[in-house]
């Protein structure tokens, strides 16, 4: 080895074999480079070489031994040329990686403790897992809120990760509804068959895009008024245009499949049941922007979606729909999948880039923006699956027909994740402009005692609204005007029997746990906010001074945090206080 300092610990045979296998499956030769080649001269050079294989290698270690051992870190450090201190810094960042020897040798049963699972009784689930001898790890939202309480099993010793509920038959609440656009193939087409996808209109959009050419695709996407569905609602056409106008450097299309916002599960269902659509629309994005490299960064807790997407990529590649001449468009495009490892922050686009590149998932300061300095510092179009899926209709129907649904300023349809106390939790698709009340009716109305107390809009990063908001039209402009947000499409209902203090304190704890720790306002602010609420819960009231302190803390988090996590960490808490859902003035 050249100039890496490694301690005496060595990887076990099974650890080394697991890492080798993970790298070989990505066409990387897991052999230490000869001494003459200086692999890791400094940041950028190391980055370009092999550093981005760190996350897959750490997954392999975790699965092989149940933790990331010192010997394992040394092996990965040597093979990838990453300093062991940095590799440890990365490993210790993620919930799904343990950096201490496990006190059990079985699989780990992750039980979600966030809002939907909290009110569905996650503690009963955890107790039953423990009673059958399973090792329980209580953690954040697993993206299965429609079937709360949620469970994800992390395998060890070569056993795969799995979600027990994936074995249950899946049915879309709106199955058979002819008005469905984004969800129309779900439960209709076979998610594991390219033929079936084709038979339901698959790859017509890519073929059409190939005929139109990149410029016309960019124009159509811009004219459609499509905006990002992850919460920020940035115009997709503007983003794609900016990447298309960059030249001279490699470019990337990244599918942000790291949905981790508590209450959100839309992209999971899309990926599990319509994976080819994600692949096809990424290819269209590559064609339009001139990017040849496609990346899917998917949260580690989504094993079925990961398998389905990999199956779709393999099938598409075999059929010539990915590769040097994707679908005969003359444009080369291929896709690789990277799994996250349990970190909400990695859904933030620049944190996602750092994570994929093998660095800690800490957000970057913006500007510069991803369109010029994205993955590997190169121009990148990053979109989530829901946003991408809209492109199919934009291309095949044209922007005018696309705009016939929704409102002038919020064209199209929206996927909404209904959970909590509703009659039929699940994924719904409605045109923008549908009112909150009509949506709740569609989902079977308020469950529990039937009396609505509040609705959490947009997830933990969103805000609560009260029963007086049932007439609120669900559009970007109306929700903004009402001081709330559609966010990532979370609509979580609470009936009057729910103790909202527990829910809100847990939301504050979520941010405390998920702050990456990089910037001071969020690292410390999220802790102090949570402490203040715990104290309030214990005393049963919040003094005016403490209420003012929450606002003061919120102000610095909004104004001075690096990224959206800090900007929104106080949003739901403050809305709950404003609505009087939790203790306010002393009695």
């Amino acid at each position: 080895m050249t100039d890496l300092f490694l301690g005496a610990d060595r990887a076990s045979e099974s650890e080394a074999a697991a890492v080798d296998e993970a790298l070989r499956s990505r066409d990387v030769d897991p052999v230490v480079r000869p001494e003459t080649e200086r692999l890791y001269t400094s940041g950028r050079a190391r980055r370009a070489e092999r550093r981005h294989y760190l996350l897959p290698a750490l997954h392999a270690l975790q699965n092989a031994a149940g933790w990331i051992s010192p010997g394992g870190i040394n092996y990965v450090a040597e093979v990838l040329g990453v300093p062991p201190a940095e590799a440890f810094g990365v490993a210790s960042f993620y919930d799904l990686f343990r950096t201490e020897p496990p006190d059990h040798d079985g699989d780990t049963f992750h039980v979600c403790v966030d809002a939907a699972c909290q009110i569905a009784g996650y503690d009963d689930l955890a107790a039953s897992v423990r009673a059958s001898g399973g090792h329980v790890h209580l953690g954040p939202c697993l993206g299965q809120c429609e079937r709360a309480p949620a469970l994800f099993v992390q395998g060890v010793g070569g056993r795969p990760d799995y979600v027990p509920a994936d074995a249950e038959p899946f049915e879309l609440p709106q199955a058979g509804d002819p008005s469905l656009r984004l969800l129309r193939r779900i439960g209709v087409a076979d998610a594991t068959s390219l033929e079936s996808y084709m038979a339901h209109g698959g790859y017509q959009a890519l073929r059409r895009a190939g005929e139109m050419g990149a410029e016309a695709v960019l124009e159509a996407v811009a004219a459609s008024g499509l905006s990002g569905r992850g919460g920020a609602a940035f115009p997709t056409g503007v983003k794609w245009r900016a990447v298309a106008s960059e030249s001279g450097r490699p470019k990337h299309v990244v599918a942000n499949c790291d949905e981790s916002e508590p209450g959100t599960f839309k992209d999971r269902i899309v990926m599990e049941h319509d994976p080819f659509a994600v692949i096809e629309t990424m290819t269209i994005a590559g064609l339009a922007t001139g990017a040849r490299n496609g990346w899917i960064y998917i949260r580690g807790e989504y094993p079925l979606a990961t398998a389905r997407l990999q199956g779709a990529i393999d099938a598409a590649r075999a059929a010539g729909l990915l590769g040097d001449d994707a679908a005969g468009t003359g444009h080369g495009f291929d896709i690789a999948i990277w799994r996250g490892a349990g970190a909400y922050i990695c859904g933030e686009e620049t944190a996602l880039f750092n994570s994929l590149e093998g660095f800690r998932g800490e957000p970057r300061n913006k500007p510069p923006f991803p369109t010029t300095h994205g993955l590997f510092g190169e121009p990148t179009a990053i979109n989530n699956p829901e946003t991408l899926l809209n492109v199919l209709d934009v291309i095949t129907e044209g922007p005018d027909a696309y705009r016939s649904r929704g409102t002038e300023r919020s064209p199209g349809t929206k996927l909404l994740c209904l959970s909590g106390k509703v009659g039929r939790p699940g994924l719904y698709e409605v045109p923008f402009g549908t009112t909150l009340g009509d949506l709740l009716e569609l989902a079977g109305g308020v469950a529990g005692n039937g009396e609505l107390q509040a609705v959490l809009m947009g997830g933990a990063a969103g805000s609560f609204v009260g029963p007086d908001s049932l007439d609120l039209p669900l559009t970007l402009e109306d929700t903004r005007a009402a001081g709330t947000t559609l966010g990532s499409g979370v609509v979580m209902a609470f009936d009057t029997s729910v103790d909202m203090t527990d829910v809100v304190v847990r939301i504050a704890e979520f941010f405390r746990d998920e702050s990456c720790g990089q910037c001071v306002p969020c690292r410390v602010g999220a802790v102090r906010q949570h402490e203040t609420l715990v104290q309030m819960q214990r005393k049963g009231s919040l003094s005016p001074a403490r209420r003012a302190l929450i606002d003061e803390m919120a102000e610095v988090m909004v104004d001075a945090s690096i990224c959206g996590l800090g900007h929104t960490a106080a949003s739901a808490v403050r809305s709950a206080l404003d609505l009087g859902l939790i203790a306010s003035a002393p009695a």
Partner: protein
Amino acid sequence: MTGAATVTETAVTITIDGQPVEVAEGSTIHAACVEAGIDTPTLCWAENLTPVNVCRVCVVELEGSRALVPSCSRPAEDGMVVQTDTPRVRHSRRMVLEFLGSGVDLSQAEDLHHWMDAYGADPDRYGDEGHSVERVDEPVKIQDELYIRDYSKCVLCYKCVEACGDDAQHTFAIAVAGRGFDARISTEFDVTLPDSACVYCGNCVGVCPTGALQFKTEYDLREVGEWRPEDQSVTRTVCSYCGVGCNLDLHVQDERIVKVTSPSDHSVTSGHLCIKGRFG
């Protein structure tokens, strides 16, 4: 971390607190503030390191920007209108200092004290009626006779990591590990420095703003109440170990060298040394 843009000969003009300031294109807003004679608190910024903009104490209000922006890393662009002393700016700076003081020991972060006074930061107001707040509270790591690490004073400014890594030494012995409030500067698995890649250049000590990293000599003197900066003389000399020609500032107390630094604007060292010059 995003590097600072290249400074070129082209000038840009920005307005700071109503006053036009001309700086070279690629300069930061912070550099423009310095040019305009406006004092700005900084913690994670240093002239010899790439800005990481993590502490957020240097934030300013930029017209057209929804959030405040870190002046240490944001390049000045022609026509920018910046405010450095608005209620929003003062509030964020005060809260950042308060947050830090509420979680770690800032008693030796002397550069911050006058800013805490200026902004009225009160780190003690977070606990209430017997309710305690989480603090970083760890025993001092003393693993050799050269320097100590006291992470209960660490503000996670990343300076030591930068100096150990890409910005100076390229040793990469330390990195940030863990997440959130539990994040710490650490070797792999927290192994001791002698078991790590550390080469004892001491460049991490040289950039630490809070006394979390300290010469063992200074630490020992402070422990017995004998650390007296006012009685110290600083003598500049050239290191005699090799032919590079590093400037050394020898800090002498009671006729004993208690600390060695190098001027951060020195053309040879940029403030960084090796074990021979630092601990000779």
